[in-house]
């Protein structure tokens, strides 16, 4: 198994190099660089712009820039310099990654908690009214653009607060400045955690709704397949109670691919919750990435992609290991 893990980690290198080269080339093809926007500033003269380019190494040939960056990553674990923040990339992206992980992690939890029972119900009561209604609901989440849904939720929050006459729901953001009259950084950690959880209610609902449908459908399909298997039929024939059949025999086997899929969620975590973060002012990866793209902050983009590649491989590896663990039929090869 260690051999297998080592091999998978080695595979990381070509994927990592390939993905970063791809990103690097794409960004370089786009017109301009991080300094271009200063050219329209009447107070900045030409020499200053040239000096900035030199300072950031933007005057080097592109392959050399890439080599320089790569050597930084390999030799110093240094993801480069953010041209926008003028500090190291890791410090720029660390917090957004963590914030997105909170949001996506909570949403995933919610998805699993809701989707599995719905999927099971839909499979057991296939084509019943309940199945149809739940299917419809699941599709609702899939069909509504999540940035649009997020906006609706934002106004919903305002409406609720107005009618309640108090701040029942937060209007965007991730934290409050004051917790019970104390500045945030002086508040106990439990209060801070609760505060983040409270702020995450609406974005989590939005993100979870859009991700729910897929899982419900997978769960339903898995369950239907397992329920038609011989051993389930045998169990029924033996006179095992229906609930036992469903929960003990069928469910256990139906969730196997879902369990294994958990590893696959890791790269999803770095993808962040997409435009929901933008609309809901959640300080996650997507706003950071959009900002980096518009500032052509090349190494921040590269840094995000590096981390995401790493998480992808680790996630896939984790999936495979989990799968081998939950499913005795699978061995490493």
């Amino acid at each position, binding site marked *: 198994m260690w051999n297998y893990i080592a091999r998978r980690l080695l595979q990381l290198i070509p994927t990592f190099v390939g993905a970063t080269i791809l990103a690097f080339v794409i960004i370089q093809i786009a017109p301009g660089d991080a300094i271009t926007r200063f050219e329209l500033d009447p107070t900045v003269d030409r020499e200053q712009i040239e000096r900035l380019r030199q300072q950031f190494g933007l005057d080097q040939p592109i392959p*050399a820039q890439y080599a320089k960056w790569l050597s930084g990553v390999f030799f110093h674990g240094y993801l480069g310099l953010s041209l926008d923040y003028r500090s190291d990339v890791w410090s720029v992206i660390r917090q957004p990654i963590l914030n997105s992980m909170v949001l996506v992690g909570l949403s995933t939890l919610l998805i699993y908690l809701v989707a599995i029972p719905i999927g099971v119900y839909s499979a057991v009561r296939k084509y019943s009214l309940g199945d*149809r209604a739940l299917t419809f609901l699941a599709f609702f989440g899939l069909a509504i653009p999540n940035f649009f849904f997020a906006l609706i939720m934002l106004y919903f929050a305002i409406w609720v607060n107005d009618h309640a006459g108090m701040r029942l729901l937060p209007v965007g953001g991730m934290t409050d400045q004051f917790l019970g009259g104390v500045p945030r950084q002086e508040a106990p950690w439990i209060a801070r955690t609760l505060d983040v959880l409270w702020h995450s209610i609406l974005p989590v609902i939005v993100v979870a709704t859009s991700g729910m449908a897929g899982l419900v459908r997978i769960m339903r399909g898995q369950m239907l397949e397992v329920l038609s298997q011989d051993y389930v039929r045998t169990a029924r024939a033996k006179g095992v109670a229906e609930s036992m059949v469903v929960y003990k025999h069928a469910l256990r086997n139906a969730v196997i691919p879902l369990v294994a899929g958990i590893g696959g969620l890791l790269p999803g975590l770095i993808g*962040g919750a997409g435009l929901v973060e933008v609309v809901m002012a959640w300080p996650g990866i997507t706003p950071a990435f959009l900002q980096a793209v518009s500032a052509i902050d090349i190494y921040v983009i590269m840094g995000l992609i590096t981390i995401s590649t790493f998480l992808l491989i680790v996630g896939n590896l984790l999936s495979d290991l989990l799968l081998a663990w939950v499913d005795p039929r699978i061995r490493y090869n």
Partner: protein
Amino acid sequence: MTRKIEARSQGALQSRSFFQEAWIRFRRHPLARLGGGVLLVLYLGALFADFLAPYPETKSFRDLTFSPPTPVHWRDENGRLTRPYVCAVERKRNLETFKLEFTQNCAQKYTIYFFVQGEPYRFLGFIPANLRLMGGEWLQNEQAHLFLWGTDDFGRDLWGRIWYGARVSLTIGIFATALALLIGVFMGSLSGFFAGKPLTLSIGLFNPAYREFVSRNPLPSLFKTLLWLALWGGLAWLVWVMLSGFWATTRGFEAVVFGVLGVGILLAIAYAVLFPLIKIDLDTIIMRTTEILAAIPDLFLLITLSVLIPQGIPPAMRFYLVVCILSFVNWGGLARVMRGQILQLREMEYAQAAQAMGASDSRVITRHILPGTFTFLIVSVTLAIPGFILAESGLSFIGLGIQEPASSWGLLLSKAQAQGITAFVDRPWLLIPGLFIFIAILSFNFMGDGLRDALDPRAKR
């Protein structure tokens, strides 16, 4: 006698192909039927957008921005039913509340006529026509206006633009899916079919095999030789630029390590040119590529690529470029699944049977392997299209997709977005494009779901 009966019974038992049976199952699926029906209506609407819309796509009324839907009257002052008519509407900003106020002036009634001559257009892009569903002289003379679903921030008729926009939104998914599918299926097929069968990349000039290779077919061989020399040369040049640039800025340990590495690579390239026979497995290359694409989160890749779209291009070009980007981001997943399917199908005995018969690779792929993936393809297409529609609306939302004055549902919805809370409180009609996105995606999903059930190979025959 018996023979006759048998013949007739055979006629009655007309054998049904897999797809015919699937179609029957599909029709029994109520939600799928509903989805299909709705989509049919939407596509017809898109096709006949010019006919449905009273105005051309880009026609704007700058003094009538954000007009609410024009009230259509069915009764005259005495409450008697009459032909539908509208009144002239005037727009003013109230300087107390700063809200827009619209007042009807019903001194003159403008009757809505159906199937009228309106502004000329070209149906399907080339047939000159001027038949419009609704209108009247007053509409062309701009004495009064007919905005069934209000106007946007430029005073353009939203009803019409939704149907014009449907052309983009409803086809972008199909085009993007088709292109992604094309790339994905092509790459996936190559990958799946050639897995474990490496192809020769280059032969070293001093390799004994090279002489044989050249002697077999001199001219094309020499051409190929030049090609791979160019490849290796280009690679060497790139490594050299990298190395020299790196040395220019770095000293010490790293420079040494990179130097050794770089020189090593250059030597390896020289060696590759001279001696070995290098074979590559297309499967490995393609799968690595998809892995690389998968490593970059979709939204990131989409955004980064969108920045590449040259902006000084006509809207039609932009549309196709958006399509290209969407499909570029998504072909990897399709290719991977296709590869899996093909690896499975390749081992099916009927594929081997065809090979044993002497069928060419392309025939085996196209006649025996690809048709086996059809059911999967159909389902994944119907389920991929809504994804693309969503992706397009997302791109348009952040301003990287379709651009004005062209329209797409995503773009139209971004107007509501730009309006913020006003859109909800005062201008709810701006949200209608969102409703269309929602309905279209829902319909595609219902249809896909129905198709999946119908095409399930395990379904009872």
